Structures are given as structure tokens and as C-alpha cells.
């Protein structure tokens, strides 16, 4: 601590410390702890809070698993179903995203001339200057019954009646995949960029096919970038709200929509908190399991 002050001077050092502590404590630790605490408390009107009824309880977690006390079902099939759907869809979206982004990132990092690479990066970044909600609406317009894509397909005679992309959730998957594409591309690009091009040539010279070179040389090299990008895309997709609200079909629910309802429409912050904590814990556990499976360490992912 002393040497930190000596190195940076008292003003800068204090500024650093205050900023970091503010960020960690006020923006991350306190809200999360507050939510954790809230999730174990009954939903009471403000006057009764801190009173004799305000005791720790598992009621909200039980609600997620077993449903309301008046329900006849053994389990809360609706909420658990939505939750599993959300996680599975997020995994699928992450995989689709990776399959899309890997060739693009490889092209930008290794094949494109510097000018083309800059143009491509710009083309990728500029759409993200527009708000996420607006981008989702744009995709909705593209996929609508009378939307651009249907019109083109009809015009070309490839289909005879309009496809309901929204009901099929194709619009939702597309929107979710596109929403976090940059968070996949940039870690991938960073990882691929550090690969020595001579390695690719050496593999080729030794007789390797393009597929094998990628499998044996490029992907192992980019493993940390793949893990980092996939983690971010998965977490953000599972926690997305705006895109599912705009693009999901009437009978598809995203788990965050449930959380939103508990907080805002039902005014049950405790239950909302419990649902948030469930999403967070399961997502983190899933990511850690995947990292164990693919032998990636946390240090590599955040590099």
C-alpha cells in the first residue's frame, strides 16, 4: 500500500482507491448482498418490515420449485419450464454465435488486409451505436409477416405463404445471436490475432488440411478466447430482457421476463430477488462446469 502511494503520488493513488472501492462495494457487493438478503425475506408491506413477521424464509425458492400453495401440481412446471428453456436457448444461441463469429474473427485476424479488417470491424461496431431495443424492433420488422424477408422470399417464389418467423422463434434466436455478437468476436479476434501466421503455414507445409489445421493448431490456441466469448454471450443471453420482450412469440417466455414481473408488476421484490439469484447461481455454475470440462482456467478467460 505504501509503495502504491509512493509510486502514484497521494492524489492519484487516493483517486484510484476510491474509484475501485466505490465500484466493487457500492455497485457490486452491496446490491447483490441486499438482493440475497431480500430473497430470503417474506414479501411484506413497508409498515411490517422489521416487525415480528420479518423472519428469514425459503418461501420464494420453494415457490420456484413447487409453485403457489393453492396449485395442484407437484412442481412449478411453468416457471421451471421457462427457466430450463431460457438456459437451453442461451446455450444454443452461444453455440450458433460461436459458429458465426469464429470464421469472421479468423478472417479479420489472419486473412484480411489491414484496411479490409478495419472496415469490417467498423461495420460490426456501428450498428451497436443504436440502442438494443431499437435493434430488436428492426429485426422484428425484418421478420414480420409482411416484413422484408417474407416479401423477398415470396417475390422469389421460394414460399407461397408468409412464414411466421416470430411464432417459430426464429426472430428471437436471430435477435439474441446478433445482440451480443461483438462480445464473441472481440475475445476471439484477440486470441486469434496472437497466433503466429507461420504456424498455419508450417501446418500446411507438413500436409495438413485446413480443417485439421484449425482443429489442432488454431482452436487450441484460441481456446481461452472461445471460453471468454462464450461465457459472456451465455451470461448476457440468459439475462437478456429487451430482445425477448420484443421478439419472442406470444407463448415463449424468457426467465428475465418473470423476474421483471415479480419486481415491477406484482411488486414482490423478494420473489424477484430469489428468481434473480437462482438465474445467477445456475448460470455461474454452468459456466464453471463447462470451463472444467474444457480445461480452461478463470485466469485465461479474463485475460
Amino acid at each position, binding site marked *: 500500500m505504501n509503495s502504491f502511494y509512493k509510486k502514484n503520488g497521494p492524489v492519484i493513488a487516493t483517486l484510484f482507491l476510491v474509484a475501485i472501492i466505490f465500484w466493487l462495494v457500492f455497485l457490486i457487493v452491496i446490491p447483490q448482498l441486499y438482493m440475497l438478503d431480500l430473497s430470503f425475506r417474506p414479501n411484506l408491506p413497508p409498515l411490517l418490515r422489521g416487525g415480528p413477521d420479518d423472519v428469514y424464509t425459503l418461501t420464494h425458492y420453494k415457490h420456484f420449485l413447487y409453485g403457489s400453495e393453492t396449485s395442484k401440481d407437484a412442481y412449478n412446471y411453468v416457471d421451471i419450464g421457462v427457466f430450463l428453456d431460457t438456459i437451453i436457448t442461451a446455450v444454443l444461441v452461444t453455440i450458433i454465435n460461436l459458429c458465426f463469429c469464429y470464421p469472421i474473427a479468423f478472417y479479420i485476424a489472419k486473412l484480411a488486409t489491414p484496411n479490409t479488417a478495419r472496415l469490417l470491424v467498423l461495420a460490426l461496431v456501428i450498428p451497436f451505436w443504436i440502442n438494443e431495443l431499437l435493434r430488436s424492433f428492426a429485426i422484428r420488422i425484418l421478420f414480420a409477416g409482411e416484413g422484408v424477408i417474407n416479401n423477398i422470399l415470396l417475390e422469389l417464389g421460394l414460399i407461397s405463404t408468409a412464414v411466421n418467423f416470430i411464432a417459430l422463434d426464429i426472430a428471437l434466436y436471430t435477435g439474441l445471436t446478433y445482440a451480443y455478437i461483438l462480445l464473441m468476436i472481440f475475445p476471439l479476434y484477440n486470441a486469434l490475432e496472437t497466433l503466429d501466421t*507461420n504456424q498455419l*503455414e*508450417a501446418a500446411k*507445409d*507438413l500436409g*495438413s488440411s485446413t480443417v485439421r489445421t484449425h482443429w489442432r493448431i488454431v482452436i487450441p490456441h484460441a481456446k481461452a478466447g472461445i471460453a471468454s466469448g462464450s461465457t459472456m454471450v451465455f451470461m448476457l443471453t440468459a439475462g437478456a430482457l429487451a430482445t425477448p420482450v420484443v421478439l419472442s412469440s406470444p407463448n415463449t417466455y424468457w426467465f428475465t421476463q418473470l423476474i421483471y414481473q415479480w419486481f415491477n408488476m406484482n411488486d414482490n421484490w423478494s420473489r424477484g430477488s430469489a428468481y434473480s439469484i437462482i438465474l445467477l447461481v445456475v448460470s455461474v455454475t454452468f459456466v464453471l462446469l463447462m470451463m472444467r470440462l474444457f480445461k480452461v482456467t478463470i485466469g485465461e478467460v479474463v485475460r
Partner: protein
Amino acid sequence: MSAEVELQNVSIAFGNFYAAKNVNVKIGAGEFFSFLGPSGCGKTTLLRAVSGFLEPSQGKVLIDGQDMSGIGPNKRPTSLIFQNLALFPLMSVADNIAFSLEVRGHDKTSRRKRADELLDLVALNGQGDKKVHELSGGQKQRVAIARALAVEPKVLLLDEPLSALDLKLRQKMRTELRAIQQRVGITFIYITHDQGEALTMSDRVGVMNDGELEQVGSCYDVYEAPCTPFVATFVGENNAFYGKVEKVEGGKVKVQTGGSSFIGQAGLGLDKKNYKFKAGDEVIMFVRPEAISLKGNSKRTQNSFSAEVKTIEFEGNLKNIFLRSAEDVDIRFSVSSSSDTSGMEPSKNVYLSFSQDNAVVLPTGALALD
């Protein structure tokens, strides 16, 4: 199995820039051939054309008489060792060496067996399970050689692979590379800007300048009988006396340079015939620093001149004495360190001479830049 490599009128252009211009050379099967030239002379480009990473803009690359146009690097009987070696850092040493066999679908045991054989060949027995980063620079070098040899190439291409090593190791690896080449008996094409490497290892050397192959010959030839001023000054050190031909008598040429006249041999052209000079031709006479000797007295004899000592440089085995002649030509004169140079101190005048057999007269042209 080794193969003959032939470059026929090979030119390689990048836009308007020609990295190689009309290169013709035939490299024999089993030969150790070096392309020697300064950086940017096009030698690496030429090597990439042989390995298949580049297609010549004009001309052809033939390996064993077979035209290689349109055949990719993974289909040619060549193997390339990169300047930075390009070993695969995430694989073990054995996996690196056997990668080409893995690609060809050999099973694990036969791959391991071959890797161990090759490790023996490059004197790295029992190091197969190590990671690449656990090896020293010289060991990595050997792994790269073993990996390149695993495919049993007919031609091994080496792109300055020793340039990252320190001097001692480089000298050791030269000897070793030469020994490996003789053991496996395949054609080696070696790229270097280091004339020491080229001269010590090669059977023949091709000296390149500015995309052109200026001279191809034995190490002895390019040193003793350079065809162009560039070769004369790039390979080893040389003193250049600019002048005009005064008289030609047989192979001997009398050259008027400054106030004096020196006699030397007419150099050999690319066609192995002596240059035909006539009186009045602009020429350069080249004399090697070690061909100059110190004269005890000031008596003018043939091919003698006086010069003022500027500096003396000690190089271990040699002493290099830099002088300026009375005609304002910079002279470099080398003697063995054990010789007595007590009379040579800066700003002193000394008398030097050289034998006419050691002076080579060539038409004017660009010198190698130091």
C-alpha cells in the same frame, strides 16, 4: 530420396515491384545450396516459390523435372523450416515431430516410433515428452529439423533458421546441419544473409542482389573469382580501386587509378570466360584485405602504394588496419593478430603492395552497401 530443383526464368512480382527477376538455376539432387544476399534481395520470396506458398509471376519451378505450378505446399515433396521455426507450442516435442504423420493418418505407436528415430538423428534422445518451451534455442532448432524431416521430403528448405541463435551455437549448428544433410542425403536449399554460414555449409552458393541472381558457384569461386562488383564486396571484404584500363595483355589488365597504375587479372564473367577489356574502359580493381602486404621501404615497385593509417581494429584472430591512400582511396588491410604492427600508428605513412594475381578487375557496377 533427394530431388533436383530447377528454377526456369522465375520472376515474382508484387504489384509493380519485382522481388525476383528472371532467376535461372539448377540445384542438383543431394546438393547443399545456399542463396546468399542482403535482406530484401528476394531470397525468401524465391524459397516461398519453391515451397509452394507463392506462385511465380513468370517462369517455372521444377522438382525432379516435374512442373510444380498449381501444386500447393502440402502436396510438394519439400519441407520448409521457418525463420522463427514455427513449432507448435501446445504440442509435445514428439507430437510436433510426428504432426505430418498424424495428418497422413498413421497410428499413435508408429508415429511415436518415427518421432523417436528422428530425435535420435538430431541427438535429442528421450526428449519427446517435453513441451517445446522447455527446450533451449539449439534444441528447438533440432526439433524443427526433425519435424521437417518426418515427411521424408526430397528437398529441405531452410529460411535463415540459425539467425536467432548466439554466435557459438550458430557455429555449432552449422557443422551439425551439414552433418545431418550428409546423413539423410537430401537436397538442402538454405537462405541466409550471413556469408559465413553460406560458405561453411554449402556445396554451391547463389549470390542475390535486388531480385537478381548475380552469381552461382562454389564457395571458393564466389570468394576468389567474383563476377560482379556486388559479389566481390558482399562476400567477404574487398578494397575497390576505381580506374580506367590503360593496357590489356593476355589475361592481365593494367589499370590507371588516381596517380598510379596497378596490374591485375581480368575477372571471370558469368560465362566463366575472362572479361574482354579494352583501353579506356571504366573498371574497378578489387584486392582482398588479406592479399595486401606491408613493404619495409618506400621504393616504388609494381602494385605498390603509400597510405596513411587511420585506425586499427582488433578482431581477435585478425587486426584490421584502416588507411587512406595517397589517392584518397579507403583501404582495409588485415593481418594476423600475431604479426608485428608496431610501426603502424594512426597518422603514420606506410607502404603497401599486392600481387597482381590477387587483384581482380571487373566492369563497374554497384557495390554491396555496408
